[in-house]
């Protein structure tokens, strides 16, 4: 029976499960559904709230905001997590590049420039510092990528860019197109050859070509190399609205690594209750297919996400709850304080800072900072105290705290 339980299968749960699996602890991952990997860009954004490098920001946070998740685990732990993640992606032959020294600015599907610390190598040629003219190419059939709009916004920021539409070869016409149907097409070399030839014909003076992040699920690096060869330019991916193909790749890579090390993923099981005594969580219940399942718990990692992931839930009376174990939550006192008047308010909306407060060992804390469970660690967006979307640190916080939580639960952190 597996008693090392990870609740949630987003980036933090997956990182934590990997740490536990590698320690030989055979974790069981219980998740209601797939996590934020599938909805987001697939990059690791460590810090983008200001112009500081991620490393500078990490070091300063220890002083200025000691309750920030990064500060709780320490800059060193973040570095370790990133090193482990990079090694994992290398082995999986889907390497991430970049680091904490500086952010890379990558074009978005709206033509904005987004600061990113680590990115899959398939996006590397998007780095705006590379210069030269950029061709943005997409497909009319894909509803979530508009090359003329992207190119116009890049041009407005001084980046020479053109936007064009490619033709889907007749043999590949479908009833309906999503990012995933396109990814399957890009797995096919005949499709890629056709697209590569079109890119070459449109290339002009462009040295780099940006395509939506749909360049295959089986072998994206091979697909990029193939397209570069055919087109004669550097090719890079630009993340799209969900479903995120880079995110799906990331999930698959983790699943493989966790299972290889003896872990197991059970997707479709929603944990909705936990019970314990003497500061120890002893049992949790999950529900799947109208069946309650009881799990004995030795140690548990709570990584169910925040408001978006479903780990934090609100109601009309202003009550904010943690949904899996009903842990105490830190949140704005009443609903009138949840939102700023402007959607794009740079400080964000207070309700999204709601979450579970922890100590430095990521153990959940009650209202008076007393430890609720000694054998539980909390990671990712479930953590209180900061709006990681505004900070552009969401995936970085998930990755680092997930890894740290897994290591702590494995007894590998003193």
């Amino acid at each position: 029976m597996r008693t090392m339980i990870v609740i949630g299968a987003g980036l933090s749960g997956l990182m934590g499960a990997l740490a536990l699996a590698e320690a030989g602890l055979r974790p069981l991952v219980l998740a209601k559904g797939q996590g934020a990997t599938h909805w987001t860009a697939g990059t690791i954004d460590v810090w983008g709230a200001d112009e500081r490098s991620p490393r500078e920001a990490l070091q300063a946070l220890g002083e200025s905001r000691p309750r920030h998740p990064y500060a709780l685990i320490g800059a060193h732990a973040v570095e370790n997590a990133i090193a482990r993640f990079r090694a994992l992606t290398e082995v999986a032959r889907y390497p991430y590049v970049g680091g904490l020294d500086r952010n890379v600015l990558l074009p978005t599907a709206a033509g904005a420039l987004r600061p990113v610390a680590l990115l899959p190598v398939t996006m590397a040629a998007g780095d705006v510092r590379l210069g030269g003219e950029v061709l943005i190419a997409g497909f009319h059939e894909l509803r979530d990528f508009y090359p003329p709009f992207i190119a116009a916004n890049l041009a407005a920021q001084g980046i020479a860019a053109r936007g064009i539409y490619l033709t889907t070869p007749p043999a590949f016409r479908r009833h309906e197109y999503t990012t995933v149907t396109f990814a399957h097409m890009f797995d096919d070399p005949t499709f890629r050859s056709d697209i590569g030839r079109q890119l070459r014909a449109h290339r002009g003076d462009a040295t780099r070509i940006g395509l939506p992040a749909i360049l295959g699920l089986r072998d994206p690096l091979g697909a990029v190399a193939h397209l570069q060869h055919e087109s004669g330019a550097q090719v890079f991916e630009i993340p799209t609205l969900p479903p995120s193909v880079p995110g799906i790749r990331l999930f698959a890579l983790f699943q493989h690594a966790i299972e290889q090390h003896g872990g197991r993923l059970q997707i479709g099981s929603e944990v909705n209750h936990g019970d314990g005594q003497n500061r120890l969580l002893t049992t949790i219940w999950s529900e799947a297919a109208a069946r309650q399942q009881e799990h004995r718990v030795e140690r548990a990692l709570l990584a169910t996400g925040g408001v978006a992931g479903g780990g934090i839930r609100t109601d009309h009376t202003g009550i904010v709850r943690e949904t899996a174990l009903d842990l105490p939550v830190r949140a704005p006192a009443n609903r009138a304080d949840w939102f700023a008047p402007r959607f794009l308010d740079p400080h964000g909306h207070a309700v999204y800072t709601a979450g579970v407060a922890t100590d430095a060992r990521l153990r959940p804390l009650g209202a008076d900072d007393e430890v609720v469970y000694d054998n539980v660690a909390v990671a990712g967006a479930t953590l209180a105290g900061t709006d990681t979307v505004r900070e552009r640190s969401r995936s970085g916080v998930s990755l680092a705290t997930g890894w740290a939580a897994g290591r702590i639960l494995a007894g590998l952190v003193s």
Partner: protein
Amino acid sequence: MRTFTTDVLVIGGGATGAGALRDLVLRGIRCALVEKGDLTHGTTGRYHGLLHSGGRYVVKDPQSAEECARENEVLRKIMPHCIEETGGLFVVTPADDEAYADRFVDACRRTGVWVEEIPVREALHREPLLNPRIKRAFAVRDGAADSFLATHANTDDARRYGAQVLTYHRVVGLERVGDRIIGALCEDLRSGETVRVHASFIINATGAWAGKIAAMAGLRINVVPGKGTMIAMNHRIVNTVVNRCKMPADGDIIVPIHTVAVLGTTDIPVPDPDVYDITPEEVHQILEEGECLVPGVSRMRALRAWAGVRPLYKEQDAGSDRDIPRTYKLLDHETRNGVAGMVSIVGGKWTTYRLMAEHTVDLVAQRLGVTTPCRTADLKIEPSHDGAASAPHQSARSQFAILASPFYMLGHRLAEVEADDSYGELICECELVTRAHLEAAIRSEGTANLDDLRRDTRLGMGPCQGGFCTYRAAAIWHELRNGTDRASGVPPATALLRHFLQERWKGVTPTLWGDQLRQERLDELNYLETLAVDRLPDAGHVAIEQKRDYVVEEVV
């Protein structure tokens, strides 16, 4: 300055104004209507959609109940395509005074409101989510009405007979010579041009704004704008109108309409019909009251909240808002104030709009020496298009309007998408807006921003509230209009995108919690994390908006 002359000018493009216009033209009187926004932009477009049986007012306001009961039958006959025969229930919940039910039945008998007590188990069989602890249940002839469709049906029919309808024309002054009003000055909000209308008679059908119009002629009308807030739930939690059997109060009714169910309402006097907001307390109160009717309703998914302002007329000082009669009042300024040439019609219900129009036009016709009787109670309004939604006949809203108009039925669109096999063309999946709808709306004259597209196509009004389609619409707008907009000074699509996100935000915040807040956070991930729209250039541009007095989300 543009000038035209008509016999009767109707001010106000809501239900009453549109009804008066049709009544006038059917009696052979030359007439025109001016509306400062779009048709139904005021209170008509912001109510819950109830076709009253009269039951709600039988005890408190029997005259209004009688009027509702009669008009209910008339409207079912003359505009069946605008009405869904849901039927209604009045139920006695454990929180209600049981003695009221007998008074209710007696009052129904006296006022001619059809009522039939049904066994509680029968009521629960019809509406399984209803509170199982209800004590008694009464069936009535409530229904759900599409007020957009009905208003357009009236104006469309009036146009067929030659009436003029001018939207986005705001009255800025009334022309008074001595003791006679002889016309109005309007501003065409689209062009900025001043339009002078000479009229033998003016009908002030501006509801909660009637006091503001009358003041332009130096007349005083004591209209108390009564704000009513409503919440649209994501699905039809009931298929019958459900009322609590008690004296009318806040939050005691659920109206199923189209794909949603509306919980209503509050009643809060506001000093100015153009300035009000929706408070968390009101929303809370509506949901808590709703729990009495449908236990668990406050945990269901709420889409959005909006408010309308009732045109309550106060002759003398009444107590609270709820004590002001719901019946209408026709104010003849000649007999009241010695000023000829204008009448004001205030108070009333949507259900009695036709009767109000008839009464008003009777007086106007008499003053003009016209003896043709009213025909609106008998003459059916033909749907403009094969039983589907009718379309405004303006050049700005072309043939696509039948599918893209604000009062469409979702089923019609689904049928079209199925017939054309255009699933892959859906830009707004929630509201089934295809690329063809959107492109037609973007190309149509007068469209200035993405919020105009929303009113035309319902873009972004479904459960995800623009999470995906805002980006798509902005990018398609760029592709279609970039060249021409730059020449004409319209801001770039990025500014429109941000403007739309902000407009949407204002509408959704009152009901953001639970699943809808979760959805909103996903939308944030899309726009902030994946697209980084906050980092786009042109932050200084501001979208051009049609001038509106207030911005609250429209009804369902």
